[in-house]
């Protein structure tokens, strides 16, 4: 039983959504998604709802209690995954494959502008014994440690990061929700945050909500003439403690991608994938994730990128949207942002510079201090 995406809706993608609460943002994104799914009625046609969020992002304990009403799920089967939106897609995929569910709605929202102490909140995700007493003033430093390890091991130079940043901002100009896209942005003109990372290497945060409707093959055509099929989705947690994870290479992304490719029967991703949307919340992460997703051999993404292979119109465009560097990071919505953009491109609703858009891989990483990635293979 294949699983299809039959509706997508988003709201926000503004640095600060001032007029609407997170619940109202969820509602607006859900309205658009249901309209996109041929006017699906969530009160009678949906078997289950999955929401992706974390308590400390919301500033509410047991924040899942707010999930049902805004998406039309009151008195229905609703639950929360404390993970990236793509992990919710993974759960929905399994639910539909089990045969017990036909239509599952996936929701994620993030309102970083409501969090005043973001550094401290993120730092609270680290180990209380081995790391917390250090009191880091900038959690991005943990990503900088990974950046240095990767760059030193594979000979990546700052100019390669420059190229990633430039590509993201250029591509982002064509993406209507990429509020941070500023072509001509010079990475080297921005200050060093934590060596080797400069301000331009670090994606900013953004408020957003995305809702996706998934349906079994049996009923998908009722809601959409051109479902985008999820042919594989997998995730992996490499380690809980950064001390034990591979500093130079994101094995979690490799493991997630391999699982998704196996399900989708993709043997050679570089040849079989038409375009990709991957996490680039730090510039170097785009290079790492390209390699982890087997779209380039280890250590070669920088060269292929320099040759234009991953640029719009290139051999295998990566982040036609500009990714997180151009759109911002809306907490756990990140994966659904990548997915919804890819769906738009595949359906031809977003005019993107790509030769063929029949098979795509989308990926998300949960950011520091996690070592968890999700990857999904989409086909139309």
């Amino acid at each position: 039983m294949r699983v299809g995406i039959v509706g997508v809706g988003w709201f926000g993608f503004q640095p600060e959504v001032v007029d609407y609460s997170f619940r109202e943002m969820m509602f607006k994104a859900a309205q658009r998604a249901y309209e996109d799914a041929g006017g699906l009625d969530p009160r009678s046609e949906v078997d289950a709802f999955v929401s992706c969020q974390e308590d400390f992002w919301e500033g509410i304990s047991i924040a899942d209690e707010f999930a049902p009403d805004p998406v039309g799920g009151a008195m229905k089967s609703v639950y929360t995954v404390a993970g990236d939106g793509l992990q919710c897609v993974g759960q929905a995929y399994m639910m539909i494959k089990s045969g017990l569910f036909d239509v599952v709605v996936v929701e994620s929202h993030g309102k970083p502008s409501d969090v005043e102490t973001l550094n401290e909140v993120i730092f609270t995700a680290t180990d209380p014994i081995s790391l917390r007493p250090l009191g880091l003033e900038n959690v991005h430093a943990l990503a900088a440690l990974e950046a240095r390890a990767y760059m030193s091991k594979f000979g990546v130079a700052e100019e390669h990061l420059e190229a990633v940043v430039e590509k993201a901002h250029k591509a982002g100009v064509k993406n209507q929700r990429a509020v941070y896209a500023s072509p001509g942005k010079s990475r080297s003109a921005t200050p060093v945050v934590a060596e080797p990372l400069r301000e331009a290497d670090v994606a900013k945060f953004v408020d957003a909500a995305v809702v996706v409707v998934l349906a079994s093959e049996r009923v998908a055509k009722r809601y959409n003439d051109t479902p985008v099929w999820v042919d594989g989705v997998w995730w992996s947690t490499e380690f809980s403690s950064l001390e034990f994870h591979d500093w130079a290479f994101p094995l979690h992304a490799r493991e997630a991608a391999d699982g998704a490719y196996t399900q989708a029967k993709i043997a050679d991703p570089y040849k079989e994938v038409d375009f990709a949307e991957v996490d680039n919340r730090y510039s170097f992460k785009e290079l790492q994730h390209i390699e982890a997703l087997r779209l380039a051999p280890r250590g070669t993404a920088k060269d292929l990128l320099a040759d234009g292979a991953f640029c719009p119109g290139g051999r295998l465009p990566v982040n036609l949207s500009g990714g997180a560097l151009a759109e911002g990071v809306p907490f756990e919505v990140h994966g659904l942002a990548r997915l919804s953009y890819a769906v738009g491109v595949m359906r031809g609703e977003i005019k993107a510079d790509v030769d063929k858009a029949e098979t795509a891989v989308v990926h998300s990483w949960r950011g520091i201090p996690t070592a968890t990635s999700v990857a999904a293979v989409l086909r139309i």
Partner: protein
Amino acid sequence: MTGRNLNFKHRVAVVGAGLTLFRRRMLETPQELAWLAAKQALDEAGLTLKDIDCVVIGSAPDAFDGVHMKGEYLAEGAGGIHKPTVRVYVGGATGVFVPIAAWWHVASGLCKRVLAVAEEKMSHSAKPHPQYVFRYIWDPIVEKPLNPNLLWIFAMEMHRYMYRCKAKKEDIALVAVKNKRNACGHPSAQLCDPNIKVEDVLNSEVLVWPVNRLDVSPVSDGAAAVVLASEEEARRITDTPVWIKGIGWTLDTTHWTNRDLAYPEYVRRAAEMAYRMAGIDNPRRQIDVAEPYDPFDYKELHHMEGLGLAKKCEAPILTREGVTQRDGDLPINPSGGLLGVGNPIAAAGLMKVAEIFWQVRGEAGARQVKKPVYTGLAQAWGDLMQAGTVIVMGI
């Protein structure tokens, strides 16, 4: 409604369960508590971590353990590293939801053996008191400025139930007495009291009328784990797999001040979903033993009614008549429940699932109910009095 397809492909069984001690304060870190339970579940199933394909974690608010992204943190102790690991969450109802989510990991055909782990370490949030964490579960704008204590919401529900059902505090206290006595047969139990009487409950400190201290489950640290397997694997692992026959869950509206609290409609809907899948049309006759969620004594009664194990307002009568005792016709919470074994939120819910597993296998020893057990049920409840999760298991 597209209509749920009941002809799902794969049967799923529970093949092992593990628990830690439940105590007020534990030295082990949350990761280590998860490991203790996970390891015991694996050992009981005769498996090692290498046999596990996927891991599902459950834990209630991050604010207890004091770790943001608690699922990421727990993954290592739960056996979830280098594996697809996911943390699911429905507040207090999480414990029973973990095996529900693990069910579709297996039923989808994508995982063969799944470890489901739930953990809670409430003692970390010690200053000023773990109860204080619950301050942040209220609506931050229209409720929290009133400085509520979590017990308010339960007391309001309990009082409304008493008002509508004309139930007396003495009747409700019988539940606490039964469960704290039952707990004496449970090796993990935090609050066994073989001699407790109704007067002890009624004379304990009044916290929020009508709730006295002994009407409430304690603050606890602890973890629980179960191993799920596909039919083929389950038969290879054990001669006595316990099948998951039905799953169901429902979330009512967030806005609890807009609805009547006397009857848990969301539990009824959740149970209906599980019963339909399990082919149960007369739960009172077809369920041999049940572990409804009992963080408060009235909740056991409330949930029995929601689950269709008693008619509306009938549960206090059944309790008074002894029907819900271990040797009764409908044994309820033979484990000792949250009131007796303890309440490390998500772990307590999964403890109930483990209890049904052991009851069905006849391995509950001192706690084994008198009547033969073919089918059992575990249920949990949470969020702002809005979440119901139900699992039906049997031979």
